[in-house]
């Protein structure tokens, strides 16, 4: 495996409402930031993640190309997934050895439509989607299966929101309160907020990484795994694919100082902690995590970026960035990075 590291990370100041920027306008500042941080204008490979249904039109990723200054023509690709998978594709490309740098970005405006209902469209189109099973409902099915304690979930939300308030890029949300259920056992505050935002990451290999960054976050393991889709055909109380991905990425080979987890519903944190084998000593989501800012399609990339940033700023030595896709933690990606 070729030495590859995250050498730069930037994100928007995420917003809870549509601030009137197009997706291309949203991604431009983070792109400018990582280009300035690395001094690179051209990259060996570029890859992005976004979702047409979020944007309300097909080919929505095309306009984002304008923010790149793709001239002369660039080697570039796109996944219709969270940009964490675009980072994975870029990491794979760097393994070939002929290019040394990659630009990765992701963006999404959840404010445009009804995210809960849009996510229904990802479900089995014969047996699940026609039921109108919305995202909060299927998350609630998993929450119910885990049987997590209300006090534990409240503390996860309280901690995440407090950390989010301390994070200039995340939303300022008040301490959780209120007892009404959204879809029991989930309460409204157990659910990540609707957020618009974007993020960019630069990966570099070997010597170039050392040139571009004082303390690169070296990727010592990266892997993803997917599970069967239908909710009744897997154990919703556990995340087998997160555990498999963590094993394949070598997460358990040492202590994890900081783990940024793609937790969109509070009950997902205990499931992931267990699946990823995180101990008491691991600080989870110091950024506040998705419960403090959830720019869908960039959220997973931001977990990797935030975890990497803890290495780059010297506050951690070994970190884990996690991303998820599909209903009820069906598909999980784990990145392990070290100083």
């Amino acid at each position: 495996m070729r030495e590859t590291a995250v050498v730069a990370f930037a994100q928007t100041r995420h917003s809870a409402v549509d601030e009137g920027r197009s997706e291309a306008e949203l991604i431009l500042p983070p792109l400018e930031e990582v280009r300035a941080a690395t001094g690179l204008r051209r990259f060996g490979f570029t890859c992005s993640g976004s979702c047409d249904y979020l944007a309300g039109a097909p080919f929505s990723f095309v306009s984002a190309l304008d923010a790149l200054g793709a001239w002369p023509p660039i080697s570039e690709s796109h996944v219709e997934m969270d940009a964490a998978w675009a980072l994975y594709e870029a990491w794979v490309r760097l393994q070939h050895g002929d290019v040394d740098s990659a630009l990765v970005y992701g963006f999404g405006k959840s404010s445009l439509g009804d995210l809960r209902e849009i996510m229904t469209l990802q479900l089995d189109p014969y047996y699940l989607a026609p039921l109108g099973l919305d995202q909060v409902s299927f998350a609630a099915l998993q929450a119910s299966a885990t049987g997590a304690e209300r006090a534990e979930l409240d503390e996860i939300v309280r901690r995440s929101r407090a950390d989010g308030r301390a994070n200039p890029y995340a939303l300022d949300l008040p301490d959780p309160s209120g007892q009404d259920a959204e879809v029991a056992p989930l309460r409204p505050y157990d659910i990540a907020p609707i957020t618009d935002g974007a993020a960019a990451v630069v990966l570099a290999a070997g010597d170039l990484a050392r040139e571009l960054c004082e303390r690169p976050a070296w990727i010592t393991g990266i892997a993803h795994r997917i599970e069967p889709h239908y909710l009744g055909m897997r154990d919703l109380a556990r995340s087998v694919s997160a555990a498999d991905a963590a094993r394949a990425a070598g997460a358990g080979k040492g202590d994890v100082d900081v783990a940024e987890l793609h937790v969109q519903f509070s009950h997902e944190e205990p499931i992931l902690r267990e699946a990823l084998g995180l101990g008491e000593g691991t600080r989870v989501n110091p950024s506040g995590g998705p419960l403090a800012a959830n720019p869908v399609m960039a959220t997973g990339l931001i977990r990797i970026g935030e975890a990497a940033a803890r290495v780059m700023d010297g506050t951690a030595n070994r970190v884990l960035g996690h991303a998820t896709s599909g209903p009820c933690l069906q598909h999980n990606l784990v990145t392990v990075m070290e100083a």
Partner: protein
Amino acid sequence: MPSSADPPAPLRARHVLEFPGGYTRTTGPVIGRFLTEMRDGRLVGVRTAAGRTLVPPLEYDPDTGDAVTEEFVEVGPSGTVESWAWVSTPRKGHPLDRPFAWALIRLDGADTSLVHAVDAGDVRAMRPGLRVRPRWRAERTGHITDIESFVPEVTRIVSEVRTEYTVTPGLALRRFLEGIAEGVLIGCRCGTCHKVYVPYRSSCPECGVSITEEVVVPDTGTITTFAVNNLPDPRAPEVPFVSAYIQLDGTDIPMIALVGGIAAHEVRQGMRVRAVWVPEEERTMSMANIRWFAPTGEPDVEL
């Protein structure tokens, strides 16, 4: 006896033969078994000595006259339509009161076909090999009509998918549309490559840097290339219509817009055109303010 509702004409009378309450037909053991199973919501056939499964069961092998065995087997419930006849106007007494198909149906496991009705909805739904299943009546008595009709197996579902969004144009496009509302075309100049783009945009596609310098561009330009469209479009007044790449004077990139005020086949590459705006009082914040671009009459530009 003549009905009092129909006064008879001279030497013409209405006459009915009807055994009140209907005939009582005993079934014997084989038909009786079939109908008993039907009353229970099941279809069965009977085995002949030669090994064929007859549906509906008879007491005898139709080919030889020999008695059938006593072995009954469950068949179906699904079957395959072998042939059919479509009834557009059902008669009283037909199984259904809406258009339907008479069909010969080979139930799964049977060696002979059952005659019954298929409620397919539309004759176009009937096709060779169509798979069907019985629609059982809720109240059954042991009668061939305990099956109201057969219906095609499900081969598709219709899924309504509708996602609703509240969209905004983005900062740059909003600025451009503000200009359009005033009858002005706002472009921009990239500070790095100095190219002039219209409509106004936030970043230069070539340089990837933010653009801040606005440039008002004239509404005259040159057609660089165009399409003559023969398929109707709601935004175009008629067919054929021309959609053209128009490079406005002083800009470095064409816009795509309608060309009007000239027959489609007279449009030329290099032709000079000017925007035809809708009257001020009809203007909104949209490109509909420009009805189309029409020829200015100036000589063509050499491309």
